[in-house]
């Protein structure tokens, strides 16, 4: 089962602005780009063409793993606003 099907089971109230703000200049220098594989919701994708990190913040499960794992410590990570983000019903 792919990740999109898993994420369909969740209730989200996405904000219009991302709560995850990586410093793109630092991302260009990053070697592991571990956020692109450790994230349990595949929020991060590396775009080779534009040399940019795509942040699908709407899918975020708010676990905080990317913040801790970020190799260059260049991720400004906040909780989404009080009315926004994911809602778990079966946690």
């Amino acid at each position, binding site marked *: 089962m792919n990740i999109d099907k898993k994420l369909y*089971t*969740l209730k989200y109230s996405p904000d219009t602005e991302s709560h995850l703000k990586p410093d793109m200049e630092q991302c260009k220098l990053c070697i592991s780009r571990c956020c692109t594989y450790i994230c349990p919701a595949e929020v991060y994708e590396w775009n080779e063409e534009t040399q940019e990190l795509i942040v699908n913040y709407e899918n975020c499960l708010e676990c905080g*793993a990317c913040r*801790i*794992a970020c190799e260059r410590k260049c991720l400004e990570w906040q909780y989404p606003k009080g009315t926004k983000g994911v809602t778990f019903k079966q946690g």
Partner: protein
Amino acid sequence: MLKRENKTDVIVVGAGPGGISCAITLARAGKEVVLIERGLFAGSKNVFGGAIYTQPTKEIFPNFEQEAPLERKNIEHNYMILGKSDSTTISYRKNDNASYSVIRGKFDRWAAEEARKAGVILVEETVVRELIKENNKVIGVKTELEEYYSDIVVLADGVNSLLAKQIGLRKEIETRDVALSVKEVLKFDKETINQRFNLKDNEGAIGEIFGGPMLGSLGLGFMYTNTDSVTIGLGITLNDLVEKNYRPFEILEQLKQHPKIAPLIEGGVLKEYSAHLIPEGGYKKVPTLCDNGVMVVGDAAMLVNNLHWEGTNLAMISGKIAAEVAIEALHSGDYSKKMLSNYEKRLKNSFVLKDMKTYRNLMDIAHQRQMAFLSYYLQKINAFFEMFTSVNGVPKRENYWKFIKSIFTDRKISELFKDIWALLRLIWSILV
């Protein structure tokens, strides 16, 4: 001069088991408490295995067995040791009411409602962005919309505790000090669950899973039965995920396909997928627990006993003890670090920090010897039973000697001595 219109006795940040236990204990003592939760409702951002434990939960909610939304009463633990395709299971069954499986979206919500009935002012859908300090004392919190003031702030804001970090009670968390957990809740009808897990009525079973796709990683899997669903999940230390290029949900998919697990969850319909961090740093990574006007409880304080799968109980009891110290501080009008350090003293004299201390060396040794204890020996246990159960015309004595010899020849002999030394060191530190 700051406005102090919104001043209460205590503000508790985070309505999980720690925060709710703290708030309700304060309210029952007649104190004015504001409990601030960032989710739509208490429990909506919370994830665990999981089970809650009867004895500690009763300390906060004496009648919870009659009143709380519980799923099943756990009567069996299954320690599943998975090889690549084989498995050995040790099963312990006793009907002793020790724990119940719960769904946090229901249980935490119920518990927060109980707190509200006891007089707690529950503020949901509100994120505390930072703590307000004045003269080196925490005097309140700043949310997105307004500021709230109090004599004491209790941080129950979970594993990431950005607030404890903000005021310097702990350093940045390292990847080796947390596990990333992913889990799925799969829907079944009640009868199917009872048949597959050998249960009747509302009895439940727990699976504690070692090895399989996690062989060689510092990670464990878990399985819980709910009323009409089964939870399957795993947690792997974040540094392992980073170093091994693992996608956590792919490892979970592999676990679900293991021959031991697959028949148990076959045909289940995914109700919900979720993820959460688990504090795994142990005693050595417990942050500073208090400062002037502030205390830290539960996951925010790294209070998880991972070997025994305990966390919610440590959160509840640490929250309760923090409340008791807060009540005394409010009576004396003294909110200094010296006064609030009674919280740390009492935690140290309780099972909470005693247990954390007992396992102080566990994670260091687990990190050092993970290939041995979380790969080699797990496979060796299965290899033993493979040998013991085989009927192939080879005389048994030959089989035994071949197996014994392999223990000395599979790896460098020095590895064996390192394992024995690590194990002795660990046992010594646990017992003495």
